[in-house]
């Protein structure tokens, strides 16, 4: 069996992270044409109203507000702690989970509701074939 070769460019860490050939990476969601419900990732049917084949893709905003967070101190071997796990409501709709960076993991410093933005970076992990992955983080914005 031939060994797997590493991909040429970075791969998206999740299917809803889009890396266009031209332009900048962004997150993409699906919106139901019937009821307006928003989903991450591709799907056929709306799980809010049951509409079939009624979903259309749209780019998520890179701007949002911190909804809630937790500071993770215990994780699995090889995962660096502490880090901030967070839930972000994006402007124009859509809620995404990610790591919050650029701020101390201290409850006294992190304010729920604070403005944040999405940033894209090469992930610090590779797959078995040695491919690189592009991931997203959230960071405070002015």
């Amino acid at each position, binding site marked *: 069996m031939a060994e797997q070769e590493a991909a040429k460019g970075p791969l998206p860490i999740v299917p809803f992270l889009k890396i266009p050939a031209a332009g900048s990476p962004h997150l993409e969601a699906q919106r139901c044409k019937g009821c307006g419900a928003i989903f991450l990732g591709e799907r056929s049917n709306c799980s*809010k109203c049951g509409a079939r084949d009624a979903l259309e893709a749209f780019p998520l905003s890179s701007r949002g507000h911190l909804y809630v967070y937790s500071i*993770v101190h215990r994780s699995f071997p090889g995962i660096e702690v502490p880090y901030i796990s967070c839930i972000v409501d994006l402007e124009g709709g859509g809620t995404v989970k990610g790591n919050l960076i650029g701020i101390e993991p201290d409850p006294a410093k992190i304010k729920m509701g604070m403005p944040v933005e999405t940033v894209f970076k090469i992930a610090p992990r590779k797959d078995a074939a040695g491919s690189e992955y592009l991931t997203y983080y959230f960071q405070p914005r002015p």
Partner: protein
Amino acid sequence: MGDVYILGVDMIKFGRFPEKSVPQLGAQAALMALDDAGLKIQDMEALYCGNLYQASGMVGQRVLHEIGQTGVPVVNCANACATGATAFREAWMAIKAGAYDLVLAVGVEQMGKGLIGGGGAGRTGIPTEGLLGSGTMPTVFAEAGMEHSRKYGTSFEQFAKVSVKNHHHSTLNPKAMYQIETPLEMVMNAEMISYPNTKLMCSVNVDGSAAAVLCSEKKARELGMKRAVRVKASVLTSDPWTDRDLVMPDVNTCTRRAAAKAYEMAGISAKDLDLVELHDCFATAEILHYENLGLCGEGEAGRAIDEGWTALGGRIPVNVSGGLLSKGHPLGATGIANLYEVSTHLRGEAGKRQVPNARFGMTHVIGLGSACAIHVLEKVA
């Protein structure tokens, strides 16, 4: 159509039993529940068995291999942390439907140690845990708790007090995994797992089993109602679509829907309850469920824990067994263990932790994915 009754119910002392098999653990509780009912396995017309980690392993049949292969119908149930309660509810429904008069429900689990959730690789090549936030259970429930903090200013200390209370309750329960007091400083200074949940604010992974003998009204009258407990409501919900549910499991909506139905089915309100065993998988979760179950007003949960409303002796004691936090949380057994606890109080047999003159009690479990089960029990005699 008559009511359904619990005729016998019991649980093993929760602990770590690596030398035992899952069916052996289930068999222990099954025999204890049969003894409690004064019946034999030959009297049971069906078995509903809840187990999560060996969901494809025919655990119910293997329990009968341990205690008597009577050839009755066996149904194996898996429904995350609502597994045991789901097995019990299926047994309840079979009797309600008139199919049987006497049914056995067993919940059993053997747990490893350590974190649950968040370990798997994503749909693409590298694991996302620690890169795209955390999917571990302590984090998921920490984030759910922070939503309450965001709305009402609930503090780390208030969440920690839940753990102080439940650990205190467990000192009165010989079947709990732990019987140790954990003062507030000890809870708050324990290893931080996922802020605001410290190690002592996370449920204990234990092995355990619990079982119940359910029976029809007709049969209960025939066999004697002296220690029977009436099932006034049995409700199961799944997660309706909510805005953030995709990335932040919503444990509130399916609990609120189940509670509303349960109160309606039982014909009572939250004020009529004498005790509640609710799903304190993490200290943060208990705070949310005070409001979800209507045990206090919206935004009052912090005050409820500060002022001892939910402690033994308070206006509505919650988790007097010690809860999942200290009694332990063997996933598939938890739902039936909660029913054991409430039944024991309604029978007036709870010893030092007895809630005086208990007439109505509620049990609640929620499994992520999601499934919420609520039962309301009533004292008969």
